[in-house]
């Protein structure tokens, strides 16, 4: 009697099962991390600044960690959708994400965020700051920022400033400035993106623009004039332009760009990641990328970053509602 040909399919099935299980068993037994590709989620579309920084980091990270590092774009909701996705991911060190500092410190006061700002993330480190510059057209009558402020005070609510919104750190920054400078009231015109905001200024539709760095090529070519920096430090290529702190307003607007993992990430993996990121930031190609993107490189270890973010968060709990921009 002919033997039924079951050995072959049986053998195949066992083989496949073995291969499949073998893969997952290796991670069950805690094979040395990292043993499979690492994914970094970015909340903006490919080609944008946030995306390019991450891709610039991914290359050296791949060499350091010796596993593929893949960037995945999940744009939407001003990076909140990606952050929400990250918060729900498994804290096994294979899913990381780029998290904007003010998703933690500011946005929760404007909108519902899909994560707990205090508890959701285990921060690896800060890599950069988006920066913020206040620009006007080069043929405008105001040559310095105090001049602009004086002119604005004389006609409250008349001079306009464009920026990307809503609920952005730029909007919060301007509001905080208005609070600190008595008599200053600007007309805030939000746009859907930084490029649109700068374009509006170029076309003369607004008087000024407060934006991260989309104004760079135009300041360089002389079409726009940089009056002030919103961040804490002056820009290396424009050392003569003062910050708001330099000018004595006691206010700053910063937007840290950091990388994090879902909370619950084992401490030793987090530390290894922090070391890897720090080393990656030293890579010359990455430094060149940062330069071409005109971003301010800022390294802050995860623990320190978290503490600073929490401090800001607590402060904003009282400050932001007072600014009166959360309800319309």
């Amino acid at each position, binding site marked *: 009697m002919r033997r039924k040909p079951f050995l072959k399919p049986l053998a195949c099935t066992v083989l496949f099962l073995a291969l499949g299980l073998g893969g997952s068993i290796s991670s069950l037994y805690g094979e040395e991390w990292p043993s499979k590709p690492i994914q970094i989620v970015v909340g903006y*579309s*490919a*080609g*944008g*600044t946030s*995306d*390019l920084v991450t*891709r610039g980091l991914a290359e050296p990270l791949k060499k350091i960690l010796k596993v593929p590092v893949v960037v*995945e*774009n*999940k*744009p*939407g*909701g001003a990076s*909140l*959708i990606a952050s*929400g996705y990250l918060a729900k991911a498994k804290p096994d060190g294979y899913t990381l994400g780029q998290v904007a500092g003010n998703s933690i410190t500011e946005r929760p006061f*404007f*909108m*519902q965020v*899909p994560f707990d700002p205090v508890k959701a993330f285990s921060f690896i480190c800060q890599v950069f700051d988006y920066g913020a510059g206040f620009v006007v057209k080069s043929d405008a009558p105001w040559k310095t920022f105090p001049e602009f402020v004086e002119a604005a005070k004389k006609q409250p*609510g008349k001079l*306009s400033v464009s920026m990307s*919104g*809503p*609920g952005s750190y730029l909007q919060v920054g301007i509001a905080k400035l208005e609070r600190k400078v008595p008599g200053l009231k600007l*007309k*805030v*015109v*939000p*746009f*859907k993106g930084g*490029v*649109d905001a*700068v*374009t*509006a200024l*170029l*076309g*003369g*539709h*607004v008087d000024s623009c407060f934006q991260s760095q989309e104004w*760079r*090529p*135009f300041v*360089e*070519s002389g*079409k726009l004039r940089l009056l002030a920096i919103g961040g804490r430090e002056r820009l290396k290529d424009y050392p003569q332009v003062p910050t708001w702190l330099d000018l004595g307003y006691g206010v700053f607007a910063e937007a840290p760009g950091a990388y994090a993992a879902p909370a619950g990430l084992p401490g030793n993996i987090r530390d290894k990641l922090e070391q890897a990121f720090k080393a990656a930031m030293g890579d010359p190609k990455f430094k*060149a*990328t940062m330069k*071409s*993107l005109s971003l301010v490189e800022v390294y802050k270890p995860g623990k320190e970053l978290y503490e600073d973010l929490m401090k800001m968060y607590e402060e904003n709990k009282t400050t932001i509602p007072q600014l009166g*921009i*959360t*309800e*319309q």
Partner: protein
Amino acid sequence: METLQNLIFGFQVTLQPINLFYCLIGVLIGTLIGVLPGIGPVGAMSLLLPATFHVSPVGAVIMLSGIYYGAQYGGSTTSILVNIPGEASSVVTCLDGYQMARQGRAGPALGIAAFGSFIAATLAIIGLIFMASPLSNGALGFGPPEYCTLMCVGLVVLTFLAQGSMYKGLMMALFGLLISYIGLDLFNAKPRFTFGAQELQEGVGIVPLVMGLFGISEILLNLEQPLRREIYKAKIKGLFPTFQDWMDAKGAILRGSLVGFFLGILPGGGAVLASFASYAIEKKFSKYPEKFGTGVIEGVAAPEAANNAAAQASFIPLLSLGIPPNVVMALLFGGLLIHGIQPGPLLIQKHPDLFWGVVASMYVGNMMLLALNLPLIGMWVRVLKIPYHLLFPLILLLCIIGVYSVNNSTFDIYLMVLFGVIGYFMQKFDFEPAPLALAYVLGPMLEVSLRQSLIMSEGSFLIFIHRPIPLVSLLLIVGLLIAQIFSYWRKKRHVPGASALGTI
């Protein structure tokens, strides 16, 4: 003449074998991407962006650009063959293109789309070369009030799209407007109509919307018939446009190119608006407007010319001013930054090889695309002969993959299916999807620019009259409306009881 010298220089750059190679790869991938529904040039460009790190800047931009305008060629293919817009700018091509395919005239439709695209792109490139600088400065003059009134003109133009009952068309437009408002409010970040769903904070994406409304609903409708029956008439009447086709379409191609060129320069304007506008204009000025939507060649030629002209024109703000007018250009912007090139007003002076090389490559690329697409027509037409019960699962699969690839979101797939079902019922009751799609595109821009304008004017509507462009636009709208009422009265007098609403 200096421009001629620069052009020759540009061709020298482009015709280097390595750059020709990048151009070829770019347009090949672009065509493929355009044909595949859902995944658009942005997706492909972002995937290839890291690969360009190791390539010269000129080569990188040539390749990435090729993907973009290549996709405009491919996008019409699925619109015509299976009523699935490969891209938002190919939605209008579905209206007549698909009908032509059902009548066995897919070949001529594809042919006129390819030729029309080529002619339009060539005209746009000429426009780019000679008018780049003054045009982009002119485009800067478009601020919120100008956009607002432009969108209003768009809404009026939209009414010309409706084929059947005007009431139903308007209802669909209102529905489209409503859908467009789902999402985060730009001014106070409050979610609207999101029902708490995080995924809806960005609103309903255009890809799930149009793929569902046009593509999925068409599949559902076709499934009602016995699957063995031919969805497409068996007799393929010729593979290329006939002389008559050319005669009919030549005006459409020229007008479409013009419309596409000017709308493409405007940031935020672009190919989608251009395709709708050119279709509506053709229909309005045609001798047989009632035939639009049943398979009229102008209905394919005009939007295809428009979206290609717009794609070429959208390079103008980027290359001459450093302002990317749409997402694709923004990606290119990023690509340039990575190579250490700062896009901006000084780009032409600092990197003339890049600027003129890219311009020349556009022409070379378009020629390659024509050579690529024409022979493929025969192949595409044969695809239609695949029995529908085998074809539709393939189409469905491509749609699902396509819509997922945009945002890596499964929610988008559900949305697409939902709109497919909605579209199915809409078709059953004679409601047209085209006004909905156009209103959906116009809605956000209209609302945002209106509110921005009012902030700028501190609440006064006079801002729309004090500036030249909005004033002209408003007068145009009033003029169009008066003309419409006039022709209604005249018809009423000659044919008592005729309803102008049904004949527009």
